[in-house]
């Protein structure tokens, strides 16, 4: 049983930010990164499946530059057996299909039984890597899985939909599954695990024949998507409570 888990280092940017000179990325001084939340659930799910099978390995793979290596080391710390990085300039990953093609080369090299991804990267929220990779690989995809169980070569999954609706599906392996945030309680590695992950050799795959970009990120600018200007309540909890009640009473 070999499970490949696609992981990514998710960005968090500060409220005030500046961009790189070419305008296609946030200046790293305004960015903090960590292993994407949903990917932590995917790694946990993979580790649990391999443990339940009694045999096998979990390989984490990430496409990108140095930041991708951080995601991989976080996955190794959690307990993944190996890591592979596919070397791609991060700006090219704005095209989902470039991402899928790059990850697809790791899949071709590793020939796993199952590929897991997180449901979405918390920074861009595309929810698209799993179906794109499944199409590249030519296997079925299961989206937004809440729980997984394996019986022989058949995977049973509970999928989530809007409105709290869920359904149960079955698929024969190989397949690609995106794992929902909160599907499980991701384990933390120990300090020793972290040290081992830090020293691990991470082989780098240089992708060949990536498809021509169909989508190009041309420009980033500061946004205020909420479109609202927040008015902060001064004072302590009493003032906050009073203000909340005033607002509520106005509409009742």
């Amino acid at each position, binding site marked *: 049983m070999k499970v490949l888990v696609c992981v990514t280092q998710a960005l968090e940017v500060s409220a005030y930010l500046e961009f790189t000179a070419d305008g296609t990325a946030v200046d790293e001084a305004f960015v903090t990164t960590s292993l994407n939340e949903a990917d932590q659930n995917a790694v946990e799910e993979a580790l649990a499946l391999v443990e339940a099978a009694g045999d096998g390995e979990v390989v984490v793979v990430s496409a990108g530059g140095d930041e991708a290596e951080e995601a991989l080391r976080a996955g190794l710390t959690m307990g993944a057996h190996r890591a592979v990085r596919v070397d791609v300039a991060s700006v090219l990953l704005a095209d989902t299909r470039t991402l899928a093609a790059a990850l697809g080369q790791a899949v071709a090299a590793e020939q796993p039984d199952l590929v897991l991804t997180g449901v979405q990267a918390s920074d861009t929220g595309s929810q698209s890597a799993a179906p794109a990779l499944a199409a590249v690989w030519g*296997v079925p995809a299961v989206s937004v899985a809440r729980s997984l169980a394996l019986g022989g070569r058949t995977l049973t999954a509970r999928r989530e939909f*809007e409105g709290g609706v869920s359904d149960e599906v079955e698929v024969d392996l190989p397949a690609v599954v995106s794992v929902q945030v909160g599907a499980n309680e991701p384990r933390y590695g120990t300090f020793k695990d972290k040290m081992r992950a830090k020293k691990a050799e991470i082989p780098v795959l240089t992708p060949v024949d990536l498809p021509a970009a169909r989508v190009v990120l041309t420009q980033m600018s500061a946004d205020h998507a909420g479109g609202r200007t927040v008015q902060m309540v001064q004072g302590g909890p009493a003032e906050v409570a009073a203000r909340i009640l005033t607002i509520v009473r106005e509409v009742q």
Partner: protein
Amino acid sequence: MTRSLVVAEIIDGALSPLTAEAVSAAAGLGDEVVVAVAGSDAAALADQVALAGVTEIVTVTVPGNDRDHDQMMQVVEALVAEVAPQVVLAPFTIRSTAWAAAVAERLDLAYTPDVVALGASGEGLSAERSIYDGRVRAQYSFPSDRPVLALVRAGAWTPAEPGGAPATRALDVAPTPSRVRLGEVRRPAGGVDLTTSDVILAVGRGVGGEENIAAFADIAERMGAALAASRPVVDAGWLPAVHQVGQTGVTVKPKVYIALGISGALHHLAGMQTSKTIVAVNTNADAPIFGYADVGAVADIHEVAEQLKALL
């Protein structure tokens, strides 16, 4: 002259109102808008997509239900081949994201999910997305002459009004059996309808534990508000799923939405950002929720709860 294909979103056999927003996005790009409705009862839904700007309706009657992504992928492929659009649009949802990237891959389309703006100029189509907690707007161009498949964010376009008398025709598609076999469906046990409440009090991870829920439920009741929660609270089992607001929960638009201990993850914002007035209380002054709030406070929600209790 742009020809767009809009793929209608069908949920549990009914037309999703988000379809009208995608039609509006398509109508903004050009004067030819073909809307496709696929499902076991597609012909019965055709009338509902006779919206302003729609020039043609194509129905595809297929056996499976609207959770069958593998079938939908084949249906959309057949539609793209038949209609030959320059642009394919659909609402950005759990269903559409499950087929869209795969269709793009198989048909060599340019693909972008979750767009908030689209533009057409002499240089071709461009798209914008709002990313990184809504703090960055990213612009995209499409350098090839391949069709563009874009999924549009809910609330980014005003829904197209009913109107027009587009011609309707049926397209025969015979999909191969899905590789994903669908089983039993579970719906959340009800009793709570958040969508009809004028005031919603929502709690997030900051509530701390199941033992603290009762206090907030009590405040909500005394305040005349419905109690809602963000995903982590439901995941942890502190409140049943029917209380969840967000992508996999309910989308709400109350007069007042009070977010207590909710940081404002993408998942949650998708379900409440169009509320009339948003109040947020969080201990982290840099929490994304404050970018979406009208009134905010950096405070401990338990201390605020104590004060609310005293006032109610």
